[in-house]
């Protein structure tokens, strides 16, 4: 099967979707002629013409607002916000509009659209190219929130998102674009071409939203992770020798609670990891749900390993990033608790 980088897989998902449905349009800042600053849309304008894939003015509000209007018309826009850190100007359109149009109009109008954005740090991008704002979307009823961790899923989940009848926030961990990254920033990264999850089937397939997947079977503790942190968790399990079960959530909203509960009931312990800041991060929701549903099985407090509650710093990037050492430490503490 062909191996692709995450960028190629994402591009492929849009390509397949645009080929299949004339209603799929792609636009955003620098996505047209240039093909996006991460090249995710490269070649799409050439293939589908300037009215199907085009450059947008630098207005995230405008991009999302226009996409909402297009979705109301009947198109299926898949737009790019250049970095997740720049989504806030569009926040009102997402929260007050996209998420609520179906509900408030009782289905007279709907909003099938995808907002793609690169997320997460690890590229020395400083406070404005590193954020992980997923929790600001998981609190919003009416949205779906997806975070793929590998090329195979990225393609399948993006196709599913484009075909979904409701608005989807699609967060792409940019540190994974070219290869899985386990947090060991001082070691060379394996490219996707050497990783089994870099195998991406040609053509159309879709990976259902709302379904988690177990990346590593384990008996002692459950790690809940998504995006980049899946690999960090793997490294931590490896390095500590703790037999952790690692769940890649893939979709945060709606959440695959059953998979989580089944695993934690089995292991009796749970560590939640994400790169976003701690307070009111999505880990809080996970911890709240796990303690609620697995209270009697839990043998230790649920630990959260996350970015610190500061803006994402530039020079101290690797002090900030919740790498395998910190996850490992939490695993050990959880096992000993």
């Amino acid at each position, binding site marked *: 099967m062909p191996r692709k980088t995450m960028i190629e897989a994402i591009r492929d998902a849009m390509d397949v979707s645009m080929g299949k449905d*004339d*209603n799929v*349009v792609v636009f955003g800042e620098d996505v047209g002629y240039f093909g996006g600053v991460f090249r995710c849309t490269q070649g799409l304008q050439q293939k589908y013409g300037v*009215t*199907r894939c085009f450059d*947008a*003015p630098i*207005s995230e*509000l*405008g991009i999302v*607002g*226009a*996409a*909402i*209007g*297009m979705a*109301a*018309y*009947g*198109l299926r826009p898949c737009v790019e916000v250049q970095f997740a850190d720049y989504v806030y*100007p569009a926040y*009102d*359109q997402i929260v*007050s*509009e996209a998420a609520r*149009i*179906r*509900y*408030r*109009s*009782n*289905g*007279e*109008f*709907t909003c099938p659209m995808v907002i793609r954005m690169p997320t997460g740090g690890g590229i020395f991008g400083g406070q404005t190219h590193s954020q992980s704002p997923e929790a600001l979307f998981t609190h919003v*009823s*009416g949205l*779906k929130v997806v975070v793929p961790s590998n090329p195979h899923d990225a393609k399948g989940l993006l196709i599913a998102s484009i075909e979904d*009848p*409701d608005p989807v926030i699609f967060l792409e961990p940019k540190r994974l674009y070219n290869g899985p990254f386990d947090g060991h920033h001082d070691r060379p990264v394996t490219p996707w071409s050497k990783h089994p999850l870099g195998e991406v089937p040609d053509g159309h397939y879709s990976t259902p939203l*709302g379904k988690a997947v177990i990346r590593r079977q384990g008996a002692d503790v459950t790690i809940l992770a998504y995006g980049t942190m899946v690999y960090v968790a793997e490294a931590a399990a490896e390095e500590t020798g703790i037999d952790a079960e690692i769940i890649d959530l893939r979709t945060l909203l*709606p*959440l695959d*609670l*059953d998979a989580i509960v089944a695993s934690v009931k089995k292991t009796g312990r749970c560590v939640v990891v994400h790169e976003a800041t701690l307070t009111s991060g999505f880990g809080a929701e996970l911890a709240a749900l796990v303690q609620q549903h697995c209270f009697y099985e839990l043998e230790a407090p649920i630990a959260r390993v996350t970015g610190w509650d500061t803006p994402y710093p530039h020079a101290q990037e690797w002090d900030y990033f919740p790498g395998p050492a910190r996850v490992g430490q939490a695993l050990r503490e959880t096992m000993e608790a």
Partner: protein
Amino acid sequence: MPQKNMLSLHVPEPEVRPGGTPDFSNVPIPKAGSVPRPEVNVDPRAIRDLAYSIIRVLNREGEAVGPWAGTLTDEELLEGLRHMMTLRAFDARMQMAQRQGKTSFYMQHMGEEAVSCAFRKALLPGDMNFPTYRQAGLLIAGGYPMVEMMNQIYSNERDPLKGRQLPVMYASKEHGFFSISGNLTTQYIQAVGWAMASAIRNDTKIAVGWVGDGATAESDFHAALVFASTYKAPVVLNIVNNQWAISTFQGIARGGSGTFAARGLGFGIPALRVDGNDYLAVHAVAKWATERARRNLGPTLIEHVTYRVGAHSTSDDPSAYRPKEESAAWPLGDPVLRLKNHLIVRGLWSEERHKQAEAEILDTVIAAQKEAESHGTLHAGGKPSARDMFEGVYAEMPPHLRRQRQQAGV
């Protein structure tokens, strides 16, 4: 000791506050018929003046004059009068219903009826409005059943929106009326996006955006002009300048020496100001702008100059911030009276027929109200279920909402 060259902040104030005598003599009102009517494919640069004037058709004598006159037949004019009278009667009844506790909230159109009623007649089936809460004339003049509007206002068991929305936040795809948002101006850029979609699909339908004078200050207004101008979207962008935004006068949003229409000029968008209390002028300008859009000539910005005679909403009392007599002093008159007079001058109407029509319309409105009330009002009778509250957040209910619905026992 005041510093030399010291700065100071300018805070615009309306000319008159409660207790003062309203005076609009400084508002320049061009004579009816005096503004030229360019071809729709005119170079926008050639008509920048139109952003600083006011297109008017009906003169003081009630005659239709000038190059913008003549877009409507006699029947259409008579129908237009009936629409405006219906909207006014509808407003009066619903305002009263709110006072009687039959619903939580209402917003009326008094003085602004011509804007949405006349504009609607320039639209074709399939076109889409992105309205604010003060364009119910689009529904009335478009033949949307009044009883449906009332069901929505009452949040009763027949409410097409299942009780989920605040009163007057109607939505009807069939009637080209996009779901009203409580958040101001968000719909403006959506209208542009809808129009872009129509152009992308090589369709023939156009979109129409609506915003109030005060709400032009919001960011979405800028996004709409940027996108409309860049992609030459087939959209008409309306600004209803009714002089007030709750308690703030239009100077707070307008500032400087500009007009709201003039905001289009920097984008190369043709911008027109029109007498919003003149049914014929609104219709003529709407025709012009919609034709531009249909011919793929791009967007048009229209400022409708009108006056909000009533309170902002049933939660508001304007006597706290403007003289009671201000609406009477408003120089553009009342849209219903002006069209009525025109029809009388034309020999198509009379005081007597007007009274009769008023009575008939009131009957129709009351009949609709009775029917709606038979399906319940906010606090009495039939109502949407708690189950409806959980539906429609997504196309398919996800597990967590199913759990919550179960927990709620509904």
